[in-house]
């Protein structure tokens, strides 16, 4: 069984990079979303196992971010794995993401090797604990 992945980012550049990288794993990109509301709608529709979520992302009311989308999705399904993707690598940004329920995070520019490592850990949680 392949892991279903939803990629959430307003930049097509980042969506393509993530899509190319995860396609090398046991994953299938089931959809892409471009803003906070689109992310929640696509999550409900596509029921992915893993979501990559840009933190600094537009919302239709101009008030929400990827952190809000992360919280909303985790409330809908606490078991889904969420990887936050951010250009901000400082501690505060990471803490905000983890508090919102994110399982892991990646700092831009995206390093394919690191992304694959994060995904492998999420897909094999028991192996990572050993």
């Amino acid at each position, binding site marked *: 069984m392949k892991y279903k992945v939803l990629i959430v980012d*307003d*930049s*097509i*550049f980042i969506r*393509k990079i993530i899509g*190319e990288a995860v396609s090398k794993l046991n994953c299938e990109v089931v959809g892409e979303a471009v803003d906070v509301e689109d992310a929640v709608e696509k999550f409900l529709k596509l029921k992915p196992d893993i979501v990559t979520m840009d933190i600094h992302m537009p919302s239709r009311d101009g008030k929400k971010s990827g952190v809000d989308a992360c919280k909303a999705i985790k409330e809908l399904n606490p078991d889904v794995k969420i990887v936050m993707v951010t*250009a901000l690598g*400082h501690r505060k940004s990471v803490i905000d993401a983890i508090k919102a329920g994110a399982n892991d995070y990646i700092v*831009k520019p995206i390093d394919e090797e690191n992304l694959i490592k994060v995904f492998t850990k999420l897909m094999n949680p028991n192996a990572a604990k050993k």
Partner: protein
Amino acid sequence: MEREIIEVFKESFENILNDVADTGIKKIDVTSIKPDKLIKTGFIIVISIIGDKSGEVLFEINNETAMNLIQKMSTNKNINNILKEEDNYSLILEFLNILLGRVITNLLENYGVELNISNPILIISNSMEIRTFRKESLYLIFETTIGQIGILISLVDINTQIKTNEKFLNDDFLNF
């Protein structure tokens, strides 16, 4: 603080340009400009900054350099064959997003300065006039192997901003 901001921008720009577009810098010029008009053409991207300092950062890239940057970014990440022409703007905006992310992280971790950025606004024009209304702005010109990229940094300390606004209210607005 001015020197630290310049250093953070220079270091971050050099690293990101190399990481994302495999491109080097040949020369950097830094000038301080007074409020005046700048005539520019090509791509202008404006990003607002709020936090311990507030203001704008403006990037200006001519068409040829912008196309070189887009080509380098997509080739470097092996996605040049799956991008459409209309995706080009997304690459430029993402480049700046990543750059400012690095700048903000460095300023917070090394100097304790906390900033937030708006989503970037892209303006494309063959003839435009830009004016800065700050007392003074920094203009960094990067001569790269793919062409020239300019960054105009117009930031003031938040306390100075509040005082300026109060002065405006006292001097101008109330006497209107």
